[in-house]
Structures are given as structure tokens and as C-alpha cells.
């Protein structure tokens, strides 16, 4: 059965790299005894593919893997979660039909919250206003802008917002393209905001990937 599973990377797990998560899943799949399919070749490993890595430290509720195993989706979820560590748990499993698109070909969006330690909410608000204002300008007078670079970013930004969370910290919420071929990371978005709108932040921020939407 071809399976696609959405899993979390939170708590201690957010301090682990993508390759660590790959190893955790491979070993868990052996312990779970679910008849996972192995890759061919000189050094066979469980055949599992993963969505692109998130930045180390990111909290995520929307990581994806795809694999093939001798069990149903419900069994996969139950047996894997029994052997997976806290903070790395499967939350949803999709049973894929024969010939279903690989996840690398699926259009996806991800909903992030970037929580800053040393940035005022007001600064985020101003930066978003500048972003929106330029969007209007670009619609009115396209000839005055280098639209190719701008547009390539804008095509991958679906929603932006700024607010304060319960701890009074500034939050930059953004829904970004997560399709593998055109993914835009929160880090790349912040870099763009720094270059174009003078939005300054240090390294002290936490990204939370709250949701992954597969279209």
C-alpha cells in the first residue's frame, strides 16, 4: 500500500536535523514491523521519501513522508506512533491510489508563524504595509518595477499578517508556497523583506509551521 503521512517535529525534535529525522523514521519503521519496502542497490534502506527540510529549530505540524508498507493507513499510524518519540508523531495518513501523484509533484501551501524575540510588532506591520503598497504600485505602473524578481516572490506569498501573541511577542504570520519545485522558506521571505523593505531582525526568532495544505 502506498502511504503518505503527515507528522510533527516539535518539542526536542525541533533541534534535530532533517537527516536525523530520516534515521528516526527508518528505525521506527523497523521496530514497528509494518513490512516496509526497501530500496534496491548495494545498501538497501527503507524506502521513505520526505518533504524538503525545514530550518533547524523550526516547530512543525506539517512534515510529510511517503512510503510503501504491508499495512493500512490506520495501522501505519497506530504502529508507528507507538515506537516514535514524543514530538515526532504521525497525525494523518492518506492511502494513495495506484498512479496517484508523488508528493513532490503536488501543489502545497504552508502556514507559518514567525515569533520574534527582539522585534516590535509595529515594525512587522510597517513592513507588510510597504509590501502591500508596492503591490498596488506594481499593478498601476508596472514599467517602473523590476517585476521579474518581485513577481516570482509575490507569486509564492499567499497571505501575510502581523500580531502580538499571548506573551506579547511580535508574530509574522505568512502562508507560503510549499510545492517542492517552487518552495519559499520563511528564511527566504525574511531575507527578501530585509533587502526590499528594510525589515531588520537578528537570529532570535522561532518559526512554527502550523499547517501544510495539499491541494
Amino acid at each position, binding site marked *: 500500500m502506498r502511504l503518505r503521512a503527515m507528522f510533527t517535529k516539535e518539542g*526536542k*525534535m525541533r*533541534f*534535530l*536535523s532533517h*537527516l*536525523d529525522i530520516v*534515521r*528516526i523514521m*527508518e*528505525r*521506527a*519503521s*523497523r*521496530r514497528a514491523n509494518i513490512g516496509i519496502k*526497501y530500496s534496491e542497490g*548495494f*545498501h*538497501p*534502506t527503507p524506502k521513505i521519501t520526505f518533504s524538503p527540510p525545514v530550518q*533547524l*529549530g523550526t516547530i512543525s505540524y506539517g512534515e510529510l513522508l511517503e512510503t510503501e508498507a504491508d499495512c493500512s493507513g490506520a495501522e501505519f499510524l497506530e504502529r508507528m506512533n507507538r*515506537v516514535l*518519540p*514524543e514530538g515526532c508523531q504521525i497525525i494523518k495518513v492518506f492511502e494513495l491510489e495506484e498512479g496517484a501523484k508523488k508528493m513532490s509533484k503536488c501543489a502545497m501551501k504552508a502556514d507559518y508563524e514567525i515569533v520574534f524575540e527582539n522585534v516590535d510588532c509595529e515594525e512587522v506591520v510597517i513592513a507588510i504595509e510597504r509590501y502591500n503598497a508596492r503591490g498596488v504600485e506594481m499593478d498601476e505602473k508596472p514599467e517602473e518595477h523590476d517585476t521579474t524578481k518581485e513577481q516570482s516572490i509575490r507569486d509564492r506569498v499567499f497571505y501575510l499578517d502581523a500580531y502580538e501573541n499571548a506573551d506579547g511577542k511580535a508574530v509574522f504570520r505568512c502562508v507560503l508556497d510549499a510545492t517542492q519545485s517552487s518552495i519559499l522558506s520563511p528564511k527566504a521571505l525574511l531575507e527578501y523583506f530585509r533587502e526590499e523593505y528594510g525589515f531588520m531582525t537578528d*537570529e*532570535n526568532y522561532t518559526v512554527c509551521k502550523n499547517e501544510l495544505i495539499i491541494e
Partner: protein
Amino acid sequence: MRKIIEEKLLLKVQKPGRYIGGECNSVQKELREDMLHFAFAFPDIYEVGMSHVGLKILYHLLNEQGNIWCERVFAPWVDADAVMKQEQIPLFSLESYTPVKAFDVVGFTLQYEMCYTNVLNMLTLAGIALRSEDRTESDPVIMAGGPCALNPEPMADFMDLFVIGEGEEVVLELAALLLRYKKGELSKREMFFQASQLQGVYVPGFYEVSYHADGTIAEFAPTSAGVPERVKKRIIRDMDKVYYPTKPMVPYIQIVHDRITQEIFRGCIRGCRFCQAGFVYRPVRDKSKETVIEQIEQSLAATGYDEVSLVSLSSMDYLACEEVVNYVMEQHAKDKISVALPSLRMDGFSIDIARKIQQVRKTGLTFAPEAGSERMRRVINKGITEEDIEKTALEVFGSGWGRIKLYFMMGLPYEEEEDILEIITVAQKVLDCYYAVAKEKRNKNVTVAVSVACFVPKPHTPFQWQAQNTIEEFQKKQRLLKSQKTNRKITLSTHEPYLSALEGVFALGDRRLGKVLEEAVKNGCIFDGWDEVFAYEKWVDAFQKAKIDPAFYANRQKGYEEKLPWDFIDVGVEKAFLIQENEKAKQAQTTPNCRLQCSACGIGTDADYGGFCQ
């Protein structure tokens, strides 16, 4: 504490995965007042410490006990060390993020001499006084074990007690004493005294050393009545009955040996004269193949690892080796489990086993002839001949491997210039074997990788009286080697002689070196075993400040009559035997392995160890 660690430390360091704990099969407990809180401290980074089988054994053994919670502590890498010092985050345990100072006992394992500064730095990070005499009842008891404890003296000032030998039994006996001390049934001194009565425990505070005018030891004696004059090592008699972890931890981040390590026997039949392990772990004690297989099965099911390593001092000497390999390969063909053998020998090398275990990865094979000339190999009792080497090389290249790695040593006792040159000759002969194999059978590429380490004389070996080569002598020999190597298919790597020189000092040293270690730590020495961190000039300064000449320990030939710093440690092998072996080395005479013939080393006739020497 958790919040501070996550916010101030984990996101500031290169590999936060080293400090998070919570791995599969790691142990969480609810700590009660009547429990012993034990910190197992490994003075190197997580990836090294977690690869160590001794840690796995003792961690899981201690946690099997209802009244003990053992947690792990590793040396923070230099980046984390700097952050912790700056943010004043104390050294903490991985399981519960508890400051190490709050534990009842901290047990360090001393795997190599160059970790000594890390031990002191970890104590500093924990906010615990370095010297045993400066600590009070409110401090944890600080102890150490492991191979370096067989000459505990350089660390004697800092440790409350040492475990000498194998720890599985004695650590529980100590834990019982520590619990009584915690409950107030014993004073600290009473507890230490009772500990000193256990076989395999050394309490340095109960001994005094006096010295002759020339700096050698005049007397080493207990200061209290009832404390034994000599400390006997502890060993496990029955390897089938002793505890072994079959639900080992599975780290999240990749460690050095990231696989199941299955111990198959202790001791070694060989008796290579330079090798400390070959003498101190006598006698040879096998695990039955039934036990080995059962433990492998349980470990595989509990971990999800895809590789098992059969570990011992010389795994191909295990009589059931091939059977165990066959079993695993056949039973686990479906789940793709592979087997690793860490120590291949060139005599009795089984190409069949090698083919089986390496069928998936044809990277290369590693052997250790140790010395270049046949005469030198007899001197060190390595016992492999040039014929063995050529036969093995032909088989290896004939089976399609393209890379052979060869380990050698330089600076061995009774070594001549031509012995050094023969290292290259041997490498050339091995390479010739490749060209002797038919073109269609051999690999397209060939490399003979030669690695030459600097010899360090070790306590309790026949070479314990030898003077180590000086740094200049090592460098001269390295230059000589490099000038001889002309073939591009042969690669040559040598060790840092500065590091080996220090290793020699601390391997052969006495308790006066404590001062040097303190000065070195003040100078900022940590992770000395790591080339990128090691700073020799800081050590030169430390020796000067402590007014100690390192050459006195490492580069001086000692007489058989001299009292050596570790003479009070009784490993069961008689001094007369070590002298006899050294005399035979001078004549380049070999001693047969224990299975062929007993050479009466003393272990078999010792009341505590005898009777089960096979």
C-alpha cells in the same frame, strides 16, 4: 532549567541534538528521596560517548535497579562550552536537565589519557571543586573507572575513588554503600573505608607516596589500618550470566559507531607486548553463541538498527564467529541486517566471513600488522608473518576490494632504522599483490593506505619500563618514512607526535601530575585528543608552572627494580612474567597464544581469577 537550556543554549550551538536526551530506550524515572541519583559522565562529545559499549552496559544495568536512576552527561563541545560559561549554565544531565552538582554520585569513565582535562573542565562547569580534599558532604561523590584507571595516579587528587577492572558487580556494591551514606547510616569517611574493602575499589585518599631524591617512588603505602596495600582488579567470571543491555539506546543524531554493539568475549588470547588490554583483561572469557544470538535478536527488535557489530579485542578469535555471522545473515536476510567485525587479523583471516559481511559495501578492509619488519613483529609478539600478509592481500584484492588500510606503529622498543623503512616495503608488497591478481578479477582502483601511530608504552605491559621516543625522534622517523614513499597508490598518514608524547606522560605518570592538569585546564586545554583544539604550547606552559619535567615520566628507561606508580594495582599478571616477556622481546622471541599453550602469566594460578582460565 529546561527553558534556559532551550533558549540560551540549544539554538546557539552547531549540533543541539547532542544535548537534548530523550532517545529511544533512554530511561526516565520519578526521583525519590530514597533513590541514588547517579550521573554517568563521559568526558568526550556525545557522538563518541554514545558509541562506547561500557556506557551502554553500566547505564542500563544501573537503571535496572529500582532504587537507582542513572542519567548521562557528556562533555559539551567547545561551542557549547563557551555559551555555557558565558550564560552561566551549569553542566546538566540529558535525561532530566538536572545540574550535575545536585547528583549523589558522578562516575567518569576514563577511556584515554587525553580526556583528563575534559574531566576537570566538566567538574568546573558543574561548579564542583576539582580536588577531592576540597569537596564537602554537600558535593556529589566523584569516581572514575575505565582502562585509564589501571594507572589512576595522575587523576588521584581529583577522584574520591576509582573502580579498577570490570564494573558490572562492583558498581552495584558501591551503590549500596552510597545509599547507606545518603541515608546517614555511614559517614563519608566510613563509606570510603568500606568501599576500600571491596575488591576492585581504590580510594586514593587512604594512601601516601614518598619519593627518592631522584624523583622515583620510595614508598607507596596506606595511611589507615585495614586499607589493603595492593588493589586487586575486579572481573566478571561468567559472561553468560553477567548483565548485558538488550534494549540499548538509539541516538537521534549520528554517532561514531551507530549500530548494535554485541560483546562476544573478554580478554585476548594473543598477548601482543605493546597492548595493555591484552594483559589487563585476562583471562579470556567467552560468551556462548546461544547467549550472543539471543542478545542480538532482542537488541534488533528493540532498536530498529540495521547493523550489528561483534565486538571484542580480536573478534576473529571467537570460535563461534562464523556461526554467529551466518546465523544473522540468514535469519535477517529479509530485513537487510548487516554484520560488522571491527578487528580483522591477517593470520587466520577468513575471506569467506569478510565476503559475507561486506557483501553490500565494497569499500575496503583494514588490518594491523603493527610493525614493518618480521623481526619487529616478533619483538612485539604480533605473530603474523610476511606470508600471512601476502596471502591475505591476494585474497582481498582477488575478491574485488580495491582498498587496504594498514596500521603500524613507530617508536617501538628495540627498533632500528631499517624496521621503519620496512613499513614502506610491506606496503609495496601488498600493492604488488594487487597487480598479481588477474585484471578482470580485481578492482579498477587500488589504494594501500598506511597509517603510522607513535608508540606509547603502557602500564601492566612488558614494555612498561621502556622510554618512549622523544618528539624529535618521532619527527625524524616520520621524515624518513615520507622520504621513502614514492608510489602514488600508497598513501601515508602519521600521528601528531606532540599528542602521543603527552599521552606517554599521563599513561606512565604519578600523582604529582595533578598539578600539571590543573594548570593545563587554567590555560584553557580541553578536547586535547581533537587536533583542531589541541594546543601544545599551553601544555609546555602548564609543565613549567607545575615545575615538572615530562621527560622524567615518558622518555626515561626504568629498571625492573624501580617502584612504578601503578605497581600497587594487581591485575593478576605477575611482574616476573612481564619481565620475562620483555627479555624475550629483546631476543625477538615470540610467545604462543593462550589457546596453543599456557605461558603461565599468573592469572590462571591466582586465587581470585584462577580456575576458569580456558
